[in-house]
């Protein structure tokens, strides 16, 4: 694995930019678009650690560092899946632009390590995240297919590897 990939996902959301920004940067609440994880960070500011944890905080699925916080137009952080901690960290950037009475959301994935399991999850995640943010902001919930998918994730939570336990991923641990 030596190649790094970039991908872009774009969607128009029929809602004001501030609402989309609030949805993306919400802390302490379940984020359906991020696979029902809850975002934890000591401070929503560049340089702070970011953790995506289960509601009961037992497991941490994604770790990273916040790179850019420019409300309401740009939020960026590094990320890696704790399950595939040997893969290098990718970068996730949300770019928001007020357009056509709503918001244009660009999700940019950078440094995605080609040929890894992380790549597959990142690429599928890009589609899921953009579509589910749109659905959640516009209608309050994901579409039926994605609700079914989120339900399945919940059912198989007991299969989460021990490596993903939150005690292994404190804020102090450098991941990038």
């Amino acid at each position, binding site marked *: 694995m030596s190649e790094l990939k*970039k*991908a872009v996902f774009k969607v128009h959301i029929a809602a004001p930019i501030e609402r989309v920004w609030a949805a993306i940067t919400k802390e302490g609440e379940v984020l359906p678009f991020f696979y029902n994880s809850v975002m934890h960070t000591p401070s929503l500011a560049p340089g702070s650690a970011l953790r995506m944890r289960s509601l009961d905080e037992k497991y941490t699925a994604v770790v990273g560092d916040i790179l850019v916080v420019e409300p309401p137009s740009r939020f960026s952080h590094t990320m890696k899946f704790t399950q595939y901690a040997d893969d290098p960290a990718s970068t996730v950037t949300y770019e928001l632009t007020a357009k056509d009475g709503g918001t244009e959301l*660009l999700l940019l994935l950078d440094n995605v390590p080609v040929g890894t399991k992380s790549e597959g999850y990142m690429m599928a995640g890009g589609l899921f995240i953009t*579509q589910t943010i749109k*659905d959640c902001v516009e*209608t309050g919930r994901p*579409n*039926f297919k994605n609700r*079914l998918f989120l339900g399945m994730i919940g059912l198989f939570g007991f299969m989460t590897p021990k490596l993903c336990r939150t005690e292994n991923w404190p804020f102090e641990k450098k991941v990038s």
Partner: protein
Amino acid sequence: MMLSEQAQDGVFQALGHATRRRILDLLKTMPGATVNDVSKYFDVSRIMVMKHLGVLEAADLIVSRKVGRVRQLYLNAVPLQMIHDRWATDYAEFWAGRVMDLKYQLEGLAVRKSDAAGSSDQPEQQP
């Protein structure tokens, strides 16, 4: 939420040309390709390729990002996924409902059988 009717029209119009579908295939495997990169794969003029790219970009099927003096092109699969879901999700909901009905019917049948077996196993009460 689905794409608007107008947006769907744009996507189907963009997909209704073999060259444009081929461009999408190329960008899927070469994210960040430039117009020159794409042009090499076609016998038509660069201007014609740019016209096709314009149609694809108007339909949001590709996103172009300017990096320095170069314009990089990326496939945006979100509208395709939404069009897929426009029909497939409805059908999934329909079938999920049918499957759940069948599950309840089978479970009900199993419970009735079990009840019947249980009652026949019971020793008859002697008066």
